[in-house]
């Protein structure tokens, strides 16, 4: 199974695009309250917000739509803090990560159970990768999501950007406006917490066996 895992290749998109020049002019108008610019900007950023929220909450979570809306409403105000250190797309992703993480924390505080990490029949029927791998991947994703609820906010943000969106250390540093060394430290602590959770998780027994 490990060999199969190694062969997994991206099935999402390529590198996150950096279209700083074009979007900056639009962002300025949106920040200043131009309704047309706000609409155009959100049509461009909308797919990214959806993608992020689905990853953080889970694609079947009942609050996906509300979370995207909340993030979209937050973007024009957040633009006042945007200094162009990262691409606007990454900046919007960060806003969406924080919005969705807050929703998870609210649910956790209210002791509401998040939806199960169900394995979709489509994924299994697709046959590539194997059903075992799909089940393990789902269990790992669930573990990372649960971990987000308990980590300090800054660590949770760094882990979400890295693990869920695939940001590199440098990209996380740019998006969160902190030094790379701080990001490394946050990720190190988050991974340590992850390891503790792995040890106590019976669903990941196969992975642990592979580690020997």
């Amino acid at each position, binding site marked *: 199974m490990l060999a199969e895992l190694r062969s997994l290749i991206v*099935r999402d*998109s*390529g590198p996150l695009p950096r279209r700083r020049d074009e979007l900056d002019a639009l962002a300025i108008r949106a920040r*200043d309250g131009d309704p047309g610019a*706000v609409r155009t900007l959100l049509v461009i950023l909308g*797919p990214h917000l959806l993608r992020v929220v689905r990853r953080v909450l889970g694609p079947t979570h009942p609050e996906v739509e509300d979370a995207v809306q909340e993030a979209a409403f937050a973007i*024009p105000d957040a633009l006042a803090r945007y200094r162009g250190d990262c691409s606007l797309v990454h900046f919007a992703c960060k806003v969406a990560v924080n919005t969705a993480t807050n929703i998870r924390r609210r649910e956790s505080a209210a002791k509401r159970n998040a939806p199960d990490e169900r394995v979709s029949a489509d994924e299994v029927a697709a046959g590539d990768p194997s059903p075992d791998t799909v089940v393990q991947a789902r269990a790992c994703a669930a573990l*990372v999501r649960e971990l987000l609820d308990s980590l300090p906010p800054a660590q949770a943000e760094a882990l979400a950007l890295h693990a*869920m969106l695939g940001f590199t250390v440098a990209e996380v540093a740019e998006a969160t406006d902190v030094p790379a060394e701080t990001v490394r430290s946050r990720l190190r602590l988050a991974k340590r917490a992850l390891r503790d959770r792995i040890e106590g998780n019976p669903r990941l027994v196969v992975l642990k066996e592979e580690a020997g």
Partner: protein
Amino acid sequence: MTDDESTDVLCAVRRRALSPEEREKLEPLLTRSLEARVLHYAGWAFDGDGDARADDDHLIARIAHAVAARAEQAPARSVWHTGRRRIGTLALAALALASSAAAGAGVVYWAGASATERSATTDEAAREHRSSALNGEVTSAHRKTDVAEPSSSSLPDVDTPDGERAAASATAHVKKHAKPTDPADLFRQANARRLAGDSNGAMAAYRRLIRLHPATREASVAQLSLAKLLLARGDAAEALKFFRVYSAAGGALGAEALWGESQSLGRMGRREEQRKALRRLLARYPKSAYAKAARKQLSDSAP
């Protein structure tokens, strides 16, 4: 391997095919580190969770409209409106194409397959607009209208209050009845109508764009947007025609066109042709945002 390298190779494997050197780094990392293995597995699952869905564009358009409506009610916040209006207009013109491609073609803007192609297309459009802007071309193009400018002799004397009102009224009349002829303007107008829910107006504008500027990139994407609107209205036969025209031209949004073609065929009851279109979609764009839905439809309709 440094800490950063091990972290970043886990990101790289989700974005592209790794080089042999990167593979050499990844394998021992996955063997050695339980956390890395969990993050690698989870990353695969997260990438799947982010897949776009067919109705995403409607959701995004609705939310964008709601946020824009709120912005409309709030007072303008800075002097950028006056000082940078021209720059912003140019940027909007460049982005109209990109934004419509995202909303009009099933929310695939960087979210699914052909990311490189799309990026190249939109970047190229933006570059062209930037280049034109530098030469002062876009501004003049944007002023073109179908409505004749009033002759100088008919212009009222704006030094008097009545003259000011008349001039304002004339300007408003020109703005209200102007029909843009520039492809970028036409495209923007059509997209604005579509996002505002005016399907008939949007379809008319897309048709006009295709008729007046058939060889432009805007007209190409307009065919796809028009096809989607036609399909949503139930005119599958007409939609099919435009989806196929777009596919034949080999546009960057080929996956969306094939998906639309398959859905049109399905609506018309041409099941076998629909299955062929779905198989073509999977063969050409196996990692597109529509791949999962295509597999499901194929599986559901298996004889």
